[in-house]
């Protein structure tokens, strides 16, 4: 796996005369864990979906390795980029092994090779899914299913891994485990891991770079301590917060407002 670059150039997306993304420009040319933050409806998921060809921008472009994603075939793009969606459930029963094996599709032929199965086994071990390997994917808890979907993304062997809220529905321990894993995976494989996230503290603790969105555009972009400031949080989320330093990492304490 090499280092693939990704770029959004003046990206505009809207429907029914409503603008969701309003000229977003971003460049990702270094490996690492990048988190996109922002309030609900600000366009975080829309942005990543424009990046993987699920949505067609109104204007502007999304580029992978300098080439517009619109010029990639779906199969070709799937070899470079994997997407772990916030929602997706199997219609019919399939084992966890079978569910993860589907991720090999962009690389595999019609038959299942030992190499494919080895990669599935590696992903199962990495994400601690051994005891569920033969269980029905649909019978897993939300947290276990998330890990299966991440494992499926990994066996796709992408150069860019995009995840939409991978830590939602997970308890705090698993949230931390998943973030730690993604950060370490980005570093060891030298790939870009781009994720949409809601938890400010988890992001502050693990992200290499944070993109804070507001009003359909990038409000702030940089390392966590520069982006997750009290002023930025108040402007973007309209809540008061206290940011303290915990072992070199910003820690955000939200200040509740009570009616007088």
């Amino acid at each position, binding site marked *: 796996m090499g280092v693939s670059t990704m770029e959004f150039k003046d990206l505009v997306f809207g429907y029914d005369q409503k603008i969701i993304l309003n000229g977003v420009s971003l460049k990702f040319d270094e490996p690492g864990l990048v988190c996109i933050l922002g309030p609900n409806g600000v366009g975080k998921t829309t942005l990543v*979906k424009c990046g*993987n*060809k*699920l949505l067609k921008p109104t204007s502007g472009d999304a580029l992978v390795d300098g080439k517009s994603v619109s010029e990639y075939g*779906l*199969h*070709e*793009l*799937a*070899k470079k*980029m*994997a*997407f772990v*969606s916030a*929602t*997706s*459930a*199997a*219609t*019919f*029963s*399939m*084992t966890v*092994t*079978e*569910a993860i*094996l*589907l*991720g090999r*599709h*962009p690389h*595999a032929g*019609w038959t*299942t090779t*030992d190499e494919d*199965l*080895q990669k*599935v*086994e590696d992903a*199962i*071990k*990495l*994400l*601690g*899914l*051994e*005891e569920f*390997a*033969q269980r*029905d994917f*649909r*019978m897993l808890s939300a947290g276990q299913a998330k890990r299966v979907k991440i494992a499926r993304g990994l066996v*796709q062997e992408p150069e860019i891994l995009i995840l939409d809220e991978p830590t939602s529905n997970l308890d705090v321990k698993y949230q931390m*485990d*998943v973030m*730690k*894993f993604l950060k370490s995976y980005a570093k060891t494989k030298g790939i870009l891991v781009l994720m949409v996230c809601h938890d400010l503290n988890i992001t502050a603790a693990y992200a290499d770079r944070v993109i804070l969105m507001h009003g359909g555009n990038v409000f702030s972009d940089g390392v966590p301590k520069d982006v997750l400031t009290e002023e930025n949080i108040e402007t973007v989320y309209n809540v008061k917060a206290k940011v303290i330093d915990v072992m070199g990492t910003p820690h955000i304490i939200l200040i509740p407002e009570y009616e007088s």
Partner: protein
Amino acid sequence: MGSAMTEQESGTVTVASSYRKNTKRKIAFIIFCLLLSMIAAVYSATLGSYPITAQEVYSTVWNVLIGNGDSLDPTIRHVVIDLRLPRIIAGFLCGLGLAISGVAMQSMLKNPLADPYTMGISTGASLGASLAIIFGIELFNAGIVANAFVFACVPALVILFLSKFKGATPLVMILVGVALNYLFSAIVQMVRLLADPDGLSDLFRWSVGNLDGVTYEHSILIMVFCIIGMAYFQYVSNQLNIMGLGDETAKTMGVDVERKRLICILLVTLVAAGIVSFTGVIGFIGLVAPHIVRIIIGSDVKYLVPAAAAFGALLLLCSDIVARVVVAPTILPVGVVTSFIGGPLFLLLILHNSKEEWA
């Protein structure tokens, strides 16, 4: 994340060995169904008012195949080759074709209730046949079969039109099929009101499904449709598996969802319309055979297509045997018997496996 699980590594079977073991189990099931189908086919050929042994059936078929047909007893040869075998071959192919159509429909539309009947193919064929039988309206002057085939294709054409210009989702496609089903059924009922007793009798025979009039020539055509359909569904089996995860996920895994779905709809129509045009409406197999097989071997379409094909063929052959013996010498419509056999079997499996399969 991985440290907790490494403790469990020792003593556990590897993913690869477990997957291969499951694969062998699936292949064994397919072979088992095929063997049972062969046994059912031979048994079926021995049944009837003229007694023939299994040995005589084998010997007759073998000698005809190697060109030694002239040396056979002409009566046995006539009964086996001209009367019983066309029906058996038709039963095998129709069961196979309806079952693979069901697998493809359910997988590509992500809906357990999808089958050729849900999509309006069978009722379309009924309408075409009704118009030909009652009013003598025959498109291209090509008879009931051609009429049934053309009308069976109408729902697919409507769905293709909607997909092209409106981007129809799987749910919309099913709802369109259901709407057309009701519309066609209503027209068929109106046509029945205007029918004379002879026409009504012919129409009834056609609408309950039977294998009586299917000839070798018809079977060859059905076989060609089935081979094309089965080869394609097998070829795109991985994509059909992925489509079961949702359209967005499938696209990000490299599947051209819309294109695959349209091709599958066309081929399902070809296979199912090809069958029901000759046999009339044989319901149930397309819906239920895939589900029964899923309970036994799982939902991997790569193995589900051949397994459902073999099981569907077996189910229809067994239904035909029952149809011929239960009130002999009267032959029941096979479409009625498939529901009588498949229904309780399906209910039994649902009650036994409801938590796993229909979560």
